[in-house]
């Protein structure tokens, strides 16, 4: 009984804060991943006819991806200061790499026969890219999107390191003040958020995959 009372008391005290923190966290993820997706996809499409440059970009993106996200936040923080913009720019840059890499790889792995067939059907290079190659590469591209999303949920925890809210507030303060309840209150929603987003994107990926294989049968 006292446990329940303590829980209600806790929620009365922190409930609103937790709600706001979850919202802020999700907002960071949605904004950063959306911008990253548009940028990475456009860049990937632009580079799709230049395989040499694309190879170099894939290699560079792989190397940059090994940099922990904390570095992007840290360095940008020095130049942009303690604003939400620091978090958004840093996480967006970080989220671009996996999507860009997968876009380039996905496009380059489209079997030659399909491109040849598209050409044979009288499609222009642009038509072939948008109507044949892009749909076929979509499952791989969405795989990159999923990776970026999971990473971003993870690194957005660090927004609180420079005072920019999110679920990191709870984890961070909890760790520093040895308050287990706060750690749990921040960690569990963050974990659930990552898992749900990942499941949703896997579903989308499967849908696209089915459509693509259906198309292949028809042709």
């Amino acid at each position, binding site marked *: 009984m006292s446990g329940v009372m303590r829980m209600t008391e806790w929620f009365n005290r922190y409930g609103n804060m937790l709600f706001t923190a979850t919202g802020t966290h999700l907002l960071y993820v949605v904004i950063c991943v959306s911008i990253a997706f548009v940028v990475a996809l456009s860049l990937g499409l632009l580079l799709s006819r230049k395989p040499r440059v694309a190879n170099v970009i894939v290699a560079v993106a792989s*190397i940059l991806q090994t940099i922990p996200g904390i570095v992007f936040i840290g360095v940008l923080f020095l130049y942009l200061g303690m604003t939400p913009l620091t978090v958004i720019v840093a996480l967006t840059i970080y989220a671009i790499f996996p999507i860009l890499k997968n876009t380039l790889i996905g496009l380059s792995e489209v079997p030659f026969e399909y491109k040849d067939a598209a050409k044979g059907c009288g499609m222009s290079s642009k038509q072939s890219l948008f109507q044949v190659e892009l749909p076929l590469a979509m499952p791989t591209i969405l795989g990159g999107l999923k990776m970026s999303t999971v990473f971003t949920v993870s690194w957005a925890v660090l927004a609180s390191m420079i005072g920019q809210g999110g679920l990191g507030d709870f984890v961070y303060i909890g760790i520093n003040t040895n308050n287990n309840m706060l750690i749990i209150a921040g960690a569990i929603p963050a974990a659930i958020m990552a898992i749900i987003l990942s499941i949703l994107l896997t579903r989308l990926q499967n849908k696209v995959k089915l459509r693509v294989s259906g198309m292949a049968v028809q042709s």
Partner: protein
Amino acid sequence: MTWEMIGDHLFIVFIAVAITMLIGILLGIISYYFKRLGLIILWLVEILQTIPALALLGLIMIVLGAGKVTTITGLVLYSLLPVVQNTNLGLKEVDEGVKDAARGMGMTRTQRLFMIELPLSMPLIFTGFRISIVNAIGVAVFGAFVGGGGLGNILYQGIRVQNARLILQGTLVLMLMAFVFDFGMGYLQKIVEAKTTHNPDIESDDSVSM
């Protein structure tokens, strides 16, 4: 930045990856033998990797307290996915004909596993190992938040005292570490691959007579 921090970082990563290898290969084998259970195992390790690193470490800290043990435990849970997945996939993808031949020679299940299936899946398992070590180098940075030491401290300190040089120094060392391991293990992998794909049939024949 001190050598101690670099040493600490490597120490944490090595211990974690060594434990990951043991548990990961074991789980991979179990998930290969028991299909249903295997699906659950693969699903669980995937979920584990989805959980934000700092959140996972925070939760572990509640149980194990601050320190290296917490960081290592977190890293192990976090690095399982590539090893388990690749072990499972490697075992599954061993040619049916080869498995059949081994069965026909009267090899027991254990013999088949250790003499045929595991050696033939080595290249894939090794790839999983490589991915997990490069990942672990990056994730170990979070150790700084839970008192685990390592290069995360340098980054964290650099941010707190607003010193870009410290941050960049730490980053460069981390990148170098990841690069050296990725490259070095890629090289090792080529050697392993050359050995395992060389003449599996003849070698398995030898091992049976032993």
